[in-house]
């Protein structure tokens, strides 16, 4: 005698994106802190030394924020015009910034007034940086030149006039004091060596270059311009390695995660994309409210800071370890393991007489009713509020099982206003779900058949029926639209696919050997087949 087989509840795949290690990692940030700045935020730079303050360049000011402060800890306001590219020196003591008025200013982080002013550029300076020996400054300007300056005596050391358009990005090498790279709107990236008078390497990006990034090993260079992010192998003489096109507007900023295994790119299309640096596949995606101009990651990825065109600075802090555990702590405490094994781990002794206890099959409530053929009660238990809202697949499975047993009509019939309203509520919530639709459509038809005589007697039920009707009409419209789109896509795919000729052969002219036919037709055992 077989035991009762419980109703099979279909396991549906979770809708939405797949959960990977990356999504878990990048979702583990708190809700963003938003700070209104005075203008579009063009640059964010983290101080390399603890406590890792960051400088935010927006309009004519540079604000320095502490890691958890919502108010700036320091403000530099001595700019005559829009400031650009406030960057810390590697010891975190000095800060350099360009300006629309072509003057480059050097500040002491603790002071207020500029320590040095570097004058020589003729147009706005969009890019400033310290070299790795800390004594020189690199600047790049809209006058198509980039210059090296000496900090102690504020003199210009060298000028490079190779670009033919605005220079908008540049990085200095962290390992070599003489190397730096600039990117310009003339679509090129140039690698300069301070010991030589000319650029030593030129790479063509193809679009105006907006941002540059050197890998910590400095073997690879990442450039962003237009919708493309390109990776170049410097050790191979600037050979392009990968070209990524995942944004649909200009990519404005690049950033590496602290481990160096993930690359982040921010774009005017309001997205930040996270790439895996081994296969350059997008592993995660952040959405923001406005076009992003600047992006920075705190050391150890403790926070993600994004500056946008609507002058809002968004800071996301990583959830601390105990915070992420907080949720599990809220759950009800389970009885300890000891409670469950109590008496179960007893090993019978040799002269013990074993009385076997029949194993009791545990059944869910609705299964118990189904076992007794109480169809209406089974449906009632499956329609309980918790199941209906949290696990609609169970309710659907029970409805499906009743339908399979041919008793769904009996189970649906004979309900009062409240019961019918609950049923209709469930239908309205789930009938358009593609996972449940095949089952629920039959149930809905049956309900309409059964209860058509009572329409108009209860306002609650009537209202729900109207809602159901609206819902279905809308759904039909959606489906029609989708079909139209599908048709369009089909034609596009059909035209884009290359036509491939399939080699086919014609068998009409193949002669058939007639002796085979004869031999098979006569079906006699052949004389020489016998021994």
């Amino acid at each position: 005698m077989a035991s009762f087989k419980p109703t099979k509840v279909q396991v549906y795949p979770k809708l939405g994106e797949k959960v990977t290690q990356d999504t878990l990692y990048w979702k583990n940030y708190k809700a963003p802190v938003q700070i209104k700045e005075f203008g579009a935020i063009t640059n964010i730079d983290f101080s390399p030394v603890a406590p890792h303050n960051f400088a935010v360049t927006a309009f004519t000011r540079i604000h320095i924020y502490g890691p958890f402060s919502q108010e700036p800890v320091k403000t530099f306001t001595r700019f005559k015009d829009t400031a650009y590219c406030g960057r810390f020196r590697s010891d975190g003591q000095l800060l350099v910034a360009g300006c629309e008025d072509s003057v480059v200013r050097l500040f002491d982080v603790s002071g207020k007034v500029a320590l040095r002013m570097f004058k020589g550029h003729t147009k706005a300076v969009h890019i400033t940086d310290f070299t790795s020996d800390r004594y020189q400054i690199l600047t790049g300007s809209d006058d198509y030149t980039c210059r090296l300056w000496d900090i102690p005596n504020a003199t210009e050391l060298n000028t490079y006039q190779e670009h033919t358009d605005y220079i908008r990005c540049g990085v200095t090498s962290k390992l070599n004091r003489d190397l730096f790279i600039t990117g310009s709107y003339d679509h090129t990236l140039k690698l300069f060596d301070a010991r030589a008078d000319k650029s030593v390497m030129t790479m063509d990006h193809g679009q105006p270059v907006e941002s540059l990034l050197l890998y910590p090993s400095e073997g690879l260079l990442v450039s962003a311009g237009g919708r493309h992010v390109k990776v170049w192998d410097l050790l191979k003489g600037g050979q392009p390695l990968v070209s990524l096109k995942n944004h649909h507007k200009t990519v404005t900023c690049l950033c590496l995660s602290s481990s160096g295994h993930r690359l982040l790119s921010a774009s005017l299309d309001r997205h930040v994309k996270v790439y895996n640096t081994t296969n350059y596949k997008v592993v995660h995606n952040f959405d923001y409210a406005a076009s992003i101009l600047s992006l920075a990651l705190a050391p150890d990825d403790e926070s993600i800071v994004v500056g946008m065109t609507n002058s809002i600075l968004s800071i996301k802090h990583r959830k601390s370890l105990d915070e992420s555990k907080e949720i599990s702590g809220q759950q009800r405490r389970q009885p300890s393991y000891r409670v469950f094994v109590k008496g179960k781990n007893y090993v019978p002794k040799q002269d013990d007489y074993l009385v076997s206890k029949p194993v009791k099959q545990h059944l869910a409530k609705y299964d118990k009713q189904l076992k007794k053929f109480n169809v209406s009660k089974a449906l009632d238990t499956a329609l309980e509020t918790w199941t209906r809202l949290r696990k609609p697949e169970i309710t659907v499975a029970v409805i499906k099982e009743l339908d399979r047993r041919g008793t769904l009509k009996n189970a649906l019939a004979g309900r009062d206003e409240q019961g019918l309203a609950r049923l209709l509520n469930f239908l309205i919530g789930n009938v358009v779900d593609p996972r449940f639709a095949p089952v629920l459509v039959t149930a809905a038809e049956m309900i309409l058949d059964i209860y058509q005589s009572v329409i108009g007697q209860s306002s609650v039920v009537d209202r729900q029926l109207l809602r159901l009707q609206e819902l279905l009409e809308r759904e039909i419209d959606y489906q029609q639209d989708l079909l139209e789109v599908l048709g369009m896509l089909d034609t596009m795919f059909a035209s884009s696919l290359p036509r491939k000729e399939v080699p086919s052969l014609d068998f009409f002219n193949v002669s058939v050997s007639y002796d085979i036919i004869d031999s098979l037709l006569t079906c006699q055992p052949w004389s020489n087949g016998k021994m």
Partner: protein
Amino acid sequence: MVEHGDIRVVHRGGSKINFREPVITHDSRYLLCASGECVKVFSTSTEECIHDLRGHTGLVTGVLLKPSNHLQVYSCSADGTVRLWDYTDGILIKVQLDSCIVFAPVFAVSVIAVIILVWKAGHNLFQLVAVDLPQSGDQLVEARELSAVLSDVSSNPAAIVFGRGGEYIASANGLHLEVYFFKKQKSYRFSLKEDNKKGGKNTVTCVACHPKDDCIATGHEDGKIRLWRNFNHKKEYTYSTLHWHHSAVSSLCFTPEGTNLLSGGMESVLVQWRYNQESERDFLPRLGSAITHITVSPDGALFCTSHSDNKITIIQSCVKVSAVIQGLVKGESVRTDMMVDPRSKSLVLNGKPGHLQFYSLPRDKLLYNLDIVQQEYIHESGLEQFEVVKAAFDASGSWLATVEERKQKDAELELNLKLWAFDEQTQSFVLNTTISAPHEARITAMCFCHATDSQTTMLVSTSKDGHFKAWQLVSDRALYRKAEFGPSWSCDFVGAYHGLVPECCCFSADGSLLAVSFQEVVTVWSPASWELLTTLSQPPKAVRDLCFGRLSCSKYLLGTTANNLLCCWNLLTCSLEWSTSMDISLLLADPLTENMAAFCCQAGSTDLFVFKPSEPRPVFSQKAVCSGKVTRAVFAPREEMLESCEESSQWLNHSQLYFLTPDLPVFPDIVIFLPPPFKLVIDDSVAMTPFYLLLGKHRQQEDADPLSGLSAERRPLPQCSVAIKELLQTPAHVLPSTSFLCSMFVQSLLISETKHVEEEMESEKEEEDSEGEMESSTQRPEQASLGGQAAPALTKAQLRELKRVKKLDHSWFPGLLHS
């Protein structure tokens, strides 16, 4: 030395055991049931079939214990005979012939007469007839005196029953119940209205009589049971009604003491009613499938129910199942192909609803049922249930793919593709992946890639929606949140060809090619790159069957078309090698050899051809293998290879061909082709025992003698053979001790000296051999040392020389004598 007969077609089992109600013997140790053309004797405790009572030439239609002798049993058959058996050792005691009986189902017995239900062909009605059993000692008795007891009775034997000590007989036909009293020679008829008020049907389906009381129970179409009393009066009869069953009651039975009434029906629940306290009931639910017969053992200790899925359940009187005897289950149709499980070598096909059955062919026994659907089966007629429609094994038997479907009238087709992995620990299949709705329409064919060395396992399914899909095992853990999920199956490729419907698919033996037939076009794909390599076509009609050649013929692809054409394409040249016109209903390839079998339907009967694609002549052909159309067959590999050298039976060396006989009124059976039995010309075939090795060698040497080999007539055997025969045939327990026999045995092997000179010399040699064998248990000296007892100094080479001279010398000797 070995003689060959013809290849025979032999019935191998799978016959119905639930055709008539079984019988339990008085000691409750055996259960007898009619099964095809024989009566099977099962043990009630071990479920094993002990032996068959063979002898009938037609369908056995009933079994009954002889009331006067507890060790004898009657059986009757559609061949018109009633036989009396001693069931313990299966010896036929007597045959009653009855020439006028055409159809003879159940009977009941009074002491000297058997009452049989017969079908009078002349009158077109069923009749109850009493046959007097002559008390003669003859084996074959012609029963002449037939006296009709009741005419116009129902064809259903369950509707005829004997009451209290055989005083009366109750028979129900349609809405009427007729009770005939033997003593009074009077019959009473009671009728019911056609339909009662509530729309129930009153047709009587079965009748039972109380053994002690005057009470008749009738079961009805609407599930009611009526208990009739006072039926020896025309007017004052009464009846009470019991109602639990929701559909027709198919069987009723009182326990021998009359305390309980058992009833069963479609619901597959055995209901036990207390007699006179009918509100108290016991239930035994979930017996598997609809109950067709209920019987109780004469001592009341065991109940036994037959079920519609060819099963007999033995139930203890405390309403607990104690044993299940399960035959081959065959539902309305065999939807899956017949397959052979590569691991257990058992036959696999769909059985109980939603199950796959594993059936051992050599033992004719169901091994186990694998629950595919895993849903509670609702026993109600008219319900559409999930059915297993396709199944496939991979080459090693570690994966099983099944397709189940359910089609409701106006709902969408529900399809599930399930993949089962073989679990070494539990030795059964465990569900790995369920793919709901793998295709939008019915799946027409499914096959695994059978290449043994391939890294990935691949499954291809073709469907009526115009696509074929390739499924592959992926173990990409990055896809899952938890690492505990093992590898699972996912779709690898979806292919289509001009929107045509794919009908069948087939992988080549090495797995490098996949052939999919789209109506009249056969497409050949490369599974590695999913490139369409070529198309082959034979335009007029659709391709029905596809098969790749094996081994040396692997370059051939064979297909049958709907317009009775068998085509063979050469894949190297992509051209048609040959084609022939045959109406082939089934084409299958032997997995172990390059042979192909084609079942060909001609004029209502099926012919079999076995051929190699590379050779123009069939290896074997047989006309009219059976009547009707064979649609299911399978090549089952042999456990050990035969070494037949005859060309026509060589194809059976590696595997056996089983087929399912077509749907005839008789329950379809599994039938097998057997190679001719080996026959030693000298003697009957002997089993391969140590004795055989000893004695067989002895004889072979005799044969090896060039002279006797040439002579047409057999030489007389040495006298010893009689003694040996006796020794071998006497049961072991009556033999004296071995030490006593040994000297006798050895002596018997010696040949008396009065024989011919030539034989004498030979017997010497034989003696040497046999002695050598006999002594081998103690020591294993070389043959030479034994022979060289006289001259131990001789070297081996010298001995060999000596032997050669001996042989030479008697080759010319007889010639000399004759001259």
